[in-house]
């Protein structure tokens, strides 16, 4: 059984129905606009633990679902 993503409109659905969308976060301490652009484009987060993510329900409502997933366990919190 694959990971289930709870779509608020359609209900729980297998992860294969969704496309992943990273929520890009640039640290506040980077203030220079060019540096922020570089960080946003190349310095992707890879946290060990809870992470905010967006998933697009391609096979259902075709809307974004935002959730928090624990990257250690794949559990959606």
């Amino acid at each position, binding site marked *: 059984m694959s990971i289930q993503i709870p779509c608020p409109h359609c*209900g729980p*659905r297998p992860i*294969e129905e969704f496309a992943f969308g990273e929520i890009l976060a640039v640290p506040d301490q980077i203030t220079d606009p060019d540096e922020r652009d570089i960080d946003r484009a190349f310095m992707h987060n890879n946290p060990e633990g809870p992470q905010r993510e967006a998933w697009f329900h*391609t*096979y*259902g*409502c*075709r*809307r974004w679902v935002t959730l928090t997933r624990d990257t250690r366990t794949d559990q959606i919190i």
Partner: protein
Amino acid sequence: MPALKRIAATRIVAQPQVLDSADVPQSSLALRFAADELFVTPPLQDETIITAHDPHAILIREGGFAGIWLPAEEAALFLARNCEWEIPNGRPAFAQGAVASIPTKLWLEDEQVLFIVPAPYAHDFAERMQD
């Protein structure tokens, strides 16, 4: 091979509360694809039932979906083999998700079930119904 037929419809994107209370003709089938999206077949004759309440609503004639009705028993067998997620128990009910790996919308009635897929998938879907 079962043939899916093109569905003539109106696709509406509007404020959810406007869709909640939309006075869609009783004889139409209105499927809530998303909180802010409604699919009505046959196409709406009177679009003001939406536009009067939401001037920013988008209404388009939609011909990009194809569908087929199956008797409930036949549909249940097909879904048991080809659907990973739980079908709602109540009837009538709308549900959507992957069926036979194709994005599918279901309108479930007591006696029959309407399967709707994007028209480019209609042929593949019909083939998978035969498998």
